[in-house]
């Protein structure tokens, strides 16, 4: 597809810019604006984590030992697997294998739902143990980061359902799958954030 209409209508790129020279953009430009905004948001959380850890080393040393590590590990495995399923869905749509693509999209969706169930159980378990946002600076950061991430998984899982609906309507094919690819890169971004959150909150003392 010729990118020039986008360039001329938005006028945000220098005239020398060309997709051919800079390389293909997976998905589309709007989803990358969203992704970079989300990365900034999580980046602020990560900086807050390191600042708080510097000031309250004891709370951050004891905090991870209070959490359910097994739930954290299970969620990491589930999210990495969901990213793999999403990559397989993209591989299938490029071969025009619509059935295979839908199968992997459902697997990614169910992985997302499983993550939400595990996380809900973990929040409940924390509550039973008497942990809340006010327990210590570690738990304040923990709830800010993980609840925010929880919301991202929730609405991205809804987006997977929408993409499955569109796939069934024949909106995607080997030649036209930009919308699905936009969802795929967003989903991978959510996985990437968990890859950083997991060691910060569950592994490092």
């Amino acid at each position, binding site marked *: 597809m010729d990118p020039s209409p986008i360039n001329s209508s938005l006028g945000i790129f220098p005239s020398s810019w060309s997709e051919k020279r800079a*390389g293909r953009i997976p998905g589309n430009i709007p989803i990358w604006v969203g992704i970079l905004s989300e990365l900034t948001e999580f980046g602020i959380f990560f900086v807050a984590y390191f600042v708080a850890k510097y000031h309250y080393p004891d709370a951050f040393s004891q905090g991870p030992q209070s959490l359910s590590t097994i739930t954290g590990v299970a969620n990491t495995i589930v999210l*990495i697997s969901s990213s793999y399923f999403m990559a397989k869905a993209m591989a299938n749509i490029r071969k025009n294998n619509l059935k295979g693509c839908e199968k992997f999209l459902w697997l990614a969706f169910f992985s997302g739902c499983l993550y939400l169930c595990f996380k809900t159980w973990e929040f409940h378990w924390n509550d039973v143990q008497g942990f809340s946002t006010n327990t210590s600076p570690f738990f304040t950061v923990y709830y800010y980061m993980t609840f925010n991430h929880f919301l991202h998984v929730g609405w991205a899982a809804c987006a997977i359902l929408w993409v499955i609906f569109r796939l069934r309507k024949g909106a995607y094919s080997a030649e036209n799958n930009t919308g699905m690819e936009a969802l795929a890169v967003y989903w991978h971004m959510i996985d*990437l954030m968990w890859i950083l959150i997991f060691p910060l909150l569950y592994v490092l003392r």
Partner: protein
Amino acid sequence: MTMFSKLEYLWLTLLAIVLFNTLLGENVESTALVSILVALTVMYKGLIVIDHFMELKDANKYLRRMMRIYFIFFPSLIILSAFF
């Protein structure tokens, strides 16, 4: 036709790293070395997802550079925090 493609190998590698990091955190006394190992494996995991799952390896070089810098910067803070 091979049973396992590159994606499957990368998926299994990522899962293995998760288990390795967890074992480190659970069984080894927390030291700077543990933090460095965890940071390096997190960096590696991130770069795999960026290059192969997001498919930025052969895509837009600016996006790829930004994503890679992000995943080098924050794991580097893990290493830095181990010394302060």
